[in-house]
Structures are given as C-alpha cells and as structure tokens.
C-alpha cells in the first residue's frame, strides 16, 4: 500500500477522533405545525428548491378494523380507491393522473391506512382535486372490483406456496389466534371471494374519519398554501370513523419449535416472543439492544456468529415489532435444510447470552455512535421527510424529538441496556416456526 503507509491504528485513531470530537451532523429539518382555517393539523418541512410536494396522510386503524368474516375488505377497498371516482372510471382516472404526472399510493397495513401523494407545483390544485375525488368519491364499480379482486386472489394463492409467507402466516396464527393480527390482511380466498360493493363502502367508513387523521407535507409549499390544501382535501371527511379501534391482540404462543413441511432446499425460520411497546420508557434501550443483536446497520452478533464465522446463512436479522395492539421481538433466518438445526441452536445460545450478559461497554458505545450518526441521514428528501413526520405524530413524539433524539440515545447507560436485556430477551419463551425439510428438528406438525 502506498498512500496509507501508516498501519491500521491510524485509521482507527482517525475514527475515534471523528466519533468523539466531530459529533455527527444534527438533523437539520425545520418542522412547522400548521393548523388549517378549518382546524386540521399537519406538520410541514418547507423546502422550495425542487418544485414538487410530498404529502403523507394516515388514518390510525388500517386492516385490523376489518369486520369479522370480512377479512381482506379494507385491503381491497384501499386498492380500489384509484380504480374510478366521481365522474371518472378507472381508465379515465388513470389518464387524468398521468396528465398531471402526479402519483398516489393507497395502502393498508394492519394498524394504518396510508395515502402517499406526490405532485408538481405547476399543477398542485388539479392534483389535489383528483386525489380528493379518489378519497371522497370512490365508485367501487363492479368491473373494477372484479378485476382487482382477481389480482388479490392471485397474490393470496402465490403466498400459499411461498415459504417466507407461510412462515409469517403460521407464526401470526399461533401468536394472535382469532385477532386480525392472526391472519393475513389480504384475507383468504373464501373471504375475498365473498366481498361485494356494500362491503367496500362499509370498509371505507371503518377507516376514514378526521378523528384518526395524521398529515405531514414536505417540499415546495408554504404553511398558508398547505392550510388551504388541507381544508380543500380533508374537511369533507366524516368527523369520525364508524367503528372503535380494534381490541388488544393478546399474545398466546407457547415456547417451542413448529416445523411446517415444505419441499424447498433452503428452510426459512421466524422466531421470537412477546416484545415491547413503542411508548414504553425502555424502548430506546431496547432499540439499541436489537441493533447490536440482530440489526442490519452494524455487523450484528447474529450475523457474526452465523454468517461470518460459519457461513450458515446469507442473512439473519432481528427486529422489534411494536404494533398498536400487540408487540413482538422477532427475527428471521434462512439456511440450507441440512444446517438449519445448527442455526436454530446458535440463535438460542445467543438469545440466552444477551439476556444473561447484556452488552459490553464497547458494544454500547459502538451502537450509539452508529445510531446517532445514521439518524440525520434519514432526512434526505421530501418523500422520506414527509413519511418520518407523519410517523412521529402517530407515535406521539413531539416536533423537537428530531433535535433531541440523539441526546436520548447517548444518555442510555450500560446499566439501562443490561436491565432491559434481561426484560426483553426471554430464551425460555422463544418459539421457532420453520418452513422446509430441516434435518434434526422435530417432525412437521403443520401443513402449509
């Protein structure tokens, strides 16, 4: 090596210098709260250098609000919003959107119905009028319903033969039983086949209400313009949605291993147990723990043990899943059938180790440096900023969280994380759902 004559030590010393002296860039997003003349609240990051606006609209609730026996209705309803509205049929609506070069995405997850829109400054009013048509006057035409239903059924059938999707479905069913979390938000072939236009209107009423509304915008729009836009777009929504929030889900999965027989050379496993809520005071320490244990940013303990040392997998990761009505700490791994048992044993060992020993001081510091450095990098465009701002509102974070978040991460002590490690990781509660033909694990108990 020519230009790096100095050995490794200097590179490391340089890093240490960066890490301590030059603190990571602060997230520099100025966020205003806008209240429209009609009283609708939104957060705004104004940035005029590119002539478009990203708008994020969310409704707390989502597919978990499906009526019993109508599983999949909300997912299908959201997919139908841009398939014809007001005087426009599906094709006329799509043509109108293309003429404006606007883009709208409508999506239901378990807890949230989300609408993501992007439109040019040059035709903002027309774009917003079109979006309003989709939200407020969807037609749910019979032929559109049939066409999109056929697409959803194709997805449901494909998931029935996909090992990853099978693992997710079995884990959810075992963990949450009859609660909506226990089944796919797409619904089943039977439930989706039975849905009609009246179900779509009922699903619409279950989701849309100003009492569950959260809005954020980023880009080329002023606070005053946004205020007028909010009233124009959202003031006609019903004051409240037609149903109360879903009940708590109630985790019910016993420890153990469930093998689902499926012919594939590489098995896939989902594993975990009950986790921690987003508004729990221990959430930040838990987040740090997960980052070290199985996160994707640092080289995690699990990646080191399974991938780097033994080549058992291309990917292993863990995550916290703090949902509205239930919470999990879980992970996923894929290994060849002949090696899955070894992966499972190592994950069990590491799960017990982090519960018993927690993190080292060095691991904690490394994670803090990574997390505090990575945080400002998230705010790198109108679209991601709008998504972050609406997400913060939904979990009840204040606007100044962006400024204070890194200090909150830095304030976590080794004592904190290790106390939370004992609480979060419970090796005797761990359940694995393995899909495949893994050697050395119990015989298949479940049909896919």
């Amino acid at each position, binding site marked *: *090596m*020519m230009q*790096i004559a100095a050995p*490794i030590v200097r*590179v490391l010393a340089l*890093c240490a210098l*960066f890490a301590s002296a030059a603190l990571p860039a602060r997230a*520099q997003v100025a966020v205003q709260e806008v209240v429209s003349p009609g009283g609708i609240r939104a957060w705004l990051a104004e*940035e005029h250098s*590119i002539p*478009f606006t990203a708008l994020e609209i969310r409704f707390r609730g989502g597919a978990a609000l499906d009526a019993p026996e109508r599983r999949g209705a909300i997912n*299908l309803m959201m*997919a139908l919003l841009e398939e014809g509205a007001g005087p426009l049929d*599906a*094709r006329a609506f*799509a*043509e109108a959107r*293309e*003429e*404006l*070069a606007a883009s709208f*995405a*409508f*999506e*239901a997850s378990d807890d949230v119905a989300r609408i993501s829109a992007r439109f*040019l400054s040059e035709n903002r009013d027309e774009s917003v009028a079109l979006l309003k048509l989709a939200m407020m006057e969807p037609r749910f035409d019979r032929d559109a319903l049939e*066409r*999109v239903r056929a*697409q959803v059924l*194709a*997805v449901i*059938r*494909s*998931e029935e*033969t996909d090992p990853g999707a099978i693992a997710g479905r079995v884990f959810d069913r075992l963990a949450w039983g009859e609660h909506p979390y226990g089944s796919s938000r797409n619904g089943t072939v039977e439930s989706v086949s039975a849905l009609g236009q009246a179900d779509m209107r009922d699903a619409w009423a279950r989701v849309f209400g100003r009492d569950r509304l959260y809005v954020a915008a980023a880009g080329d729009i002023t606070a005053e313009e946004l205020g007028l836009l909010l009233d124009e777009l959202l003031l006609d929504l019903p004051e409240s949605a037609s149903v109360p929030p879903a009940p708590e889900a109630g985790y019910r999965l016993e420890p153990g291993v469930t093998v689902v027989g499926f*012919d*594939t*050379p*590489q098995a896939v496993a989902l594993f975990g147990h009950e986790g921690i809520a987003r508004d729990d005071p221990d959430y930040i320490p838990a987040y740090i723990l997960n980052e070290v244990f199985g996160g994707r*940013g*640092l*080289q995690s303990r699990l990646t080191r043990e399974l*991938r*780097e040392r*033994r*080549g*058992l997998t*291309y990917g292993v990761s863990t995550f916290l899943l703090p949902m509205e009505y239930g919470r999990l700490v879980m992970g996923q791994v*894929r290994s*060849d059938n002949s090696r899955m048992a070894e992966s499972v044993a190592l994950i069990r060992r590491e799960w017990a180790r982090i519960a018993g020993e927690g993190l080292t001081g060095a691991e904690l510091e490394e994670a803090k*440096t990574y997390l*505090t*450095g*990575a945080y*400002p*990098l998230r705010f*790198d*465009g*109108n*679209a991601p900023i709008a998504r972050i701002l609406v997400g913060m509102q939904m979990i009840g974070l204040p606007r100044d969280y962006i400024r204070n978040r890194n200090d909150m991460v830095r304030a976590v002590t080794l004592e904190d994380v290790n106390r939370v490690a004992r609480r979060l990781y419970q090796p005797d509660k761990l359940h694995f759902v393995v899909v495949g033909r893994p050697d050395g694990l119990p015989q298949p108990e479940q049909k896919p």
Partner: protein
Amino acid sequence: MRPALALLTALALLLSGSPAAAVPATTFTLDNGMEVVVLEDHRAPVVVHMVWYRVGAADEPPGKSGVAHFLEHLLFKGTDDLGPGEFSRIVARNGGSDNAFTSWDYTAYFQRVAADRLELMMRMEADRMRDLRMSEEDVATERQVILEERGQRVDSQPNALFREQRGAAQFLNHPYGIPVIGWRHEMERLEREDAYAFYRRYYAPNNAILIVAGDVRPQEVRALAERYYGPLEPTPDLPPRIRPQEPPQLVERRLTFADPRIAQPYITRSYIAPERDSGDQRAAARLTLLAEVLGGDGATSMLGRKLLFEEKKAIFVSASYDGTAVDDTTFGLVMVPAAGVSLQEAEAALDRALAEFLEEGIEPEQFARIRMQLRAARIYGRDNIGTLAREYGAGLATGLTVADIEAWPDILQEVSAEEVLAAARELFDRDRAVTGWGMPAEEGGQ
C-alpha cells in the same frame, strides 16, 4: 403500483429507470485514468460515495461463473490495513451504511454517510482497490455464504430458477446467458486464486469510476480523490471489453417450467434488443418509450387496456426494457392470465394484442401523457441523489459518456410515435425471442 400487486410485479424484469441528468454533473479524470463525477445536492449534510468497476459477470473466464460476485463479497474481508469485516464496521461506527452490487456489466461499492466523513470513505475504498487480503479460511466460509445466497435468491424461488433457464436459452453465445450469481456447480469450485486473479486484473483506477453525490463541492472532491485514488497504480494493458457476441438467432425458443411452488401460471416473452450506445442512443430511447406505451400502467397502456380491461384475459401485464448494458439486451413482456384462461389462450391473446397494436398505432394522447411523465421524472428524480448517482454509475460503466447521460432525457422527448412503432415492428420477431410458460406442476398448462 397498487400494493396488492407487489408479488406479481416481482415477476416482471427490471423496469426501465427514470431519466437522469436532473442535476448538473462535474467531471474530471485523474492522471491514472480514474474517472470522477460529482453531483451536488446541498439540502442535507449527506454524501453518497461510490466506486464502480467496469467489470461484471459477463467478463468472467469460462467455467468460473459467479467469481465477480464472489469477489464482491471478499472485498469486505480486509486489506493489508484493515481486518476482516473492519471496513463495514468503521462505516457503521461513523453512522454510515455501505453495500455493494454486481451485475453482468459492472460491480459497484457504495457508502452513505455524513458529508464530513467523505475523506475516511475514500481512504478506505482506495485501500481495498489494490491491497486486498483474503485468507483461505475466509474464502471457504464466504463460499458457503454465496451458496446460501443462491439458495435464498434462486434455488428456493421457482420464478428465479425459471428466469435463469430462460436467460440461458435467450443468449446462444453471449455470457449474459449465465446467471450473475453463478451456476451452483461452478460456484462450489471457486478458489481463492480465481477471485484474486480477477481482482488483480480488473480492480484498478483505469477501470474504475468514482461518483460522489450530495453535500460536497467539486474542488474538495478533486483534492481528496487526487490524494487517495491518485497514487494507485493502473493495470497496464487492460484488455478491451470484447465478449462473445450473438450469432443470428433463427429459431423461436419455448420453455415450459412446472413447479408445485408456482401458484399462479404466467407467460413471459423476451426479445433480443439493442442497448444504449455512446453517441447513438436513439434505438434504445424508442424501446424505452415502447415499454411505457405497451405496459406502463395497467389502466392506460396498450396491453393493459386490451388484455385487462377489454378482453379480460389477464390480471396483470407488463413490458420492460433497460438499455443500460454493454451488449445487446432484452425487451420483456409478462402476462398473468385471468382465472379459467389457459396459457395457450392467453398467449394467443397477447400475440393478437401486439399485432393489433402494430396495425392501430399509438394514440397521440397516450404519447403526450408519457412525455409529460418523463419530464416530471426529472423533477422528482432530484429528490433522491442516490438514485441519480446510480444512473450515472451504470451509464458510465457500460460505455456511455456523461454527455450521453445528460442528453438522454432530451432524446426521449424527441422520439416520435412513428419511430416507436417502427421499432416495435423490428423488435417483435419470434425467431429472436424466448417464450416461457410457468405453471403449477399438476396442471400441465391448461
């Protein structure tokens, strides 16, 4: 795209990218031949640092499939200055993320990091361009990892297995017919020396492109690049990129793949198609527009209107083309038949729709809407500097110049509907196409 369709779109080939050249680029070349591009975006204190090598899987020696991608993995195993895994660890310790990717035509390494860490990234990336270390033990473990990667991405995915077989049938002679990840039996035999020889030859400044995008000034990038990349030795007598070329394709190829893991039968069709050439991108621009006209949006595209809305023979159709390649590439179609429509019936409907399209031509209103969307893509594209950086990298690594990349959006606007139709007439020759039927095992295609 509607969320429910995510799975179906995964069947489609890579969709063509949005037009680049939305942000002015500053370019220069170091004395050792390394090309540098700087793209400025000062909205956030973030920088993307990328090094692209003009080498990919299509440049591998015969019998060594997968070595380009294997080497990409091994680049994280350390150098004379850094231990195994140290590179990514240092990036993470600085709050950044890093990764790499390999295609047939290029291999690229990138980091996304706070702008004030750019120097460190350059120092480390320059270090591993020439001074890689790999122990036999690391090589053996990493070979297991790439085999697991193949297991995850290909062997467990019937659609991916079928795509591999169709690719092999599409190219009679060109290495684009060999999967980037490699054939399993060849991957199992890749040795340290295979990777090292490939590395010594192709990882050199005169075969590399540096792209720095984000909150940086060109003069600052130049000073750092000269300091860290400037002293690296070029590879003398770097061979020109001449791969075995396709002979005339004279016979239609048809493949049927049955697998119990395929739940939803589907049809694919891919035609050999020209790529973007430096100074001559018009043919590729016509095909880029053709893909939009035929399959851009389910409700407004030609195939969507005919097959989804009018005849109701399909639940999904798409057309795809990405001309950013060194050699001739493909133009792809995918159709998922509606329930009760056999693959045979569906394919007949698809061919009928294509024939009608050649008769009827392109609606001027549809063409105007596509032009409007391409124009808007330049505005929206400025919001994601990382995507722009990738477009420059892929273009430069496949033989285009910065001038070509900057001219591309205008060429797309200039192409006429008549030209697109003429390109379609030339393209749709089944002697140069592969047709695939994917189906569940027991149904036998009906």
